[in-house]
């Protein structure tokens, strides 16, 4: 019997509180060894890791590349896989490979198979793909089954066709099906981070509201603690609540710190929408067990009769090249916001002599308004500024041409009162122009209305 079958049988035979280890909120950036070892010594019934999110921007999803380095990703996968097999408990990983589309999942699976081969591990693995089939999605667009939220423009058939990858966030159903198929390892493409941890307790009959609330917290590791951090966290769940404990003794889960975590990256701290229902935290209670453990209860769950799948897709907008430079000249700094558009006009007159305007060129002036959504008026000018010019063009060569031309004419651009006639800007290194490869934007961020939230994500079983 495999790990999930063994754990399910054990709990059905003799019910007891269940222990879940949130090993990493971002697998692939390193798991602290000491606290992970501490977590394993507590003999969890499941080890879970979240591996991705939409927060990292559209390019990883579009390009099909991981955000984490292959070396550190492999090291983390090996750590959790080895521990889960030694304990004979399920290892559950969601949003494989940062963005959870086919290439991300395949790269993750290739690493897992390679680790198994190298280390002589054998196990049964469930794999759930999150890519949404295009013909079915086009049908859904035509029949009004796709809706917008957060003021996103309506999804068009062209958006569906243009996107490099489109994934859907799977909920608990596919994870439950995987765990019920008697497996040792579950690897999902794009998934709700909660499903990684809530699915096993839910199928064992623990209250879904508590399991979901617990999952929402432990998917981030020890971020809910003071001081917050990425160490593994252990949750022990029973039928009345759950207790949280960081596996780093310096991190304390306090009632306030855990309650405050419900705010993190959420627009509403009281209700959270999942594909299969709604988590309601209006009556959640947070109590101290001791000075570094918190007990949480009161979260409730409402199943939905109208499931929705959140879709994410990214489309290529061109090739990106950037120019990196700075200035320490007070007169240039004072005028640069009006000078830069003039430089851009000059660049256009040169690179578009015999070609149409087929690119965008933007500047961000760090020190003035490079970072803030809104820069306040009447701020004193800084002593230095960093200027980033960014070009997005149809080809890598065109983007490079634009930023190289820009570099030269920004360096020598004349303006009233100019003293530094040998050059306006400083380069930290040369070449100061960098080609960054293809640029993407999210063109799909919509809700797909379905009859069955699980049908899109069938479970495939593989013996490794």
């Amino acid at each position, binding site marked *: 019997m495999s790990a999930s079958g063994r754990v399910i049988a054990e709990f059905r035979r003799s019910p007891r509180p269940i222990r879940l280890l949130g090993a990493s909120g971002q697998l692939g950036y390193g798991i602290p060894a000491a606290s992970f070892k501490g977590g394993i010594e507590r003999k969890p019934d499941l080890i879970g890791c979240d591996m991705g999110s*939409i*927060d*990292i*921007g*559209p*390019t990883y999803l579009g390009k099909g590349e991981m955000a984490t380095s292959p070396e550190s990703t492999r090291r983390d996968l090996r750590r959790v896989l080895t521990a889960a097999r030694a304990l004979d408990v399920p290892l559950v990983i969601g949003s494989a490979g940062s963005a959870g589309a086919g290439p991300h999942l395949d790269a993750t699976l290739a690493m897992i198979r390679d680790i198994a081969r190298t280390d002589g591990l054998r196990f049964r693995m469930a794999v759930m793909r999150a890519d949404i089939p295009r013909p079915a999605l086009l049908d859904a667009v035509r029949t009004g089954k796709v809706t917008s939220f*957060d*003021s*996103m423009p309506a999804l068009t058939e062209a958006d569906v066709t243009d996107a490099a990858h489109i994934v859907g966030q799977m909920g608990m159903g596919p994870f439950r099906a995987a765990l019920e198929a008697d497996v040792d390892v579950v690897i999902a493409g794009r998934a709700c981070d909660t499903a990684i941890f809530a699915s096993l307790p839910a199928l064992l009959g623990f209250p879904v509201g508590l399991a979901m609330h617990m999952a929402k917290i432990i998917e981030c590791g020890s971020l809910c603690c003071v001081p917050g951090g990425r160490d593994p966290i252990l949750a022990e769940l029973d039928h009345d609540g759950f207790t949280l404990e960081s596996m780093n003794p310096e991190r304390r889960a306090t009632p*306030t710190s855990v*309650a*405050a*975590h*419900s*705010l*993190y*990256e*959420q*627009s*509403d*701290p009281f209700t959270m929408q999942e594909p299969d229902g709604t988590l309601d935290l209006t009556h*959640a209670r*947070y109590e101290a067990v001791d000075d570094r453990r918190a007990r949480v209860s009161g979260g409730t769950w409402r199943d939905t009769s109208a499931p929705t799948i959140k879709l994410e897709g990214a489309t290529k*907008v061109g090739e990106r090249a950037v120019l990196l430079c700075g200035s320490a000249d007070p007169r240039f700094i004072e005028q640069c916001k009006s000078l830069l558009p003039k430089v851009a006009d000059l660049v256009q007159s040169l690179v578009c002599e015999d070609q149409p305007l087929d690119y*965008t060129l*933007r500047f*961000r002036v760090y020190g003035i308004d*490079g*970072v*803030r*959504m*809104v820069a*306040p008026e009447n701020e004193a000018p800084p002593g230095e500024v960093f200027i980033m010019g*960014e070009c*997005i063009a149809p080809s890598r060569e065109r983007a490079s041409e634009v930023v190289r031309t820009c570099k030269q004419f920004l360096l020598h651009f004349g303006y009233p009162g100019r003293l530094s006639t040998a050059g306006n800007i400083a380069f930290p290194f040369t070449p100061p122009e960098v080609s960054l490869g293809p*640029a*993407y*934007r*999210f063109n799909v*961020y919509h809700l797909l209305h379905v009859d069955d939230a699980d049908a899109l994500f069938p479970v495939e079983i593989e013996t490794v």
Partner: protein
Amino acid sequence: MKLSDIAQVIRSKNAGPRRLTLDIMFGSDTDYNRVAQSPALGAENIGRLYRVPADQVTIIPYPVGRAIKIVMPRTIMAGDPGDYDVYGAQQHAPLLGIEI
């Protein structure tokens, strides 16, 4: 007194790629109550600071976490060409100097 002198945490982050959420957390119930009742943290004032219409700004008091949450639309979708802060992690700065 400035908000940055009272709060323990003042942070911003995306809540999905189209919305920005700002969390202000306090070390004591006294500090929380004092700020939660101040009109300086009303939708009108926050909307003015971020140049977002007040009716698109949501203020959520969260006493159990001694925190106040502010939610508003991002002016540009995260990661779109022209974005300035893909994670939205540095948009808290305008809150720091609010006089309470």
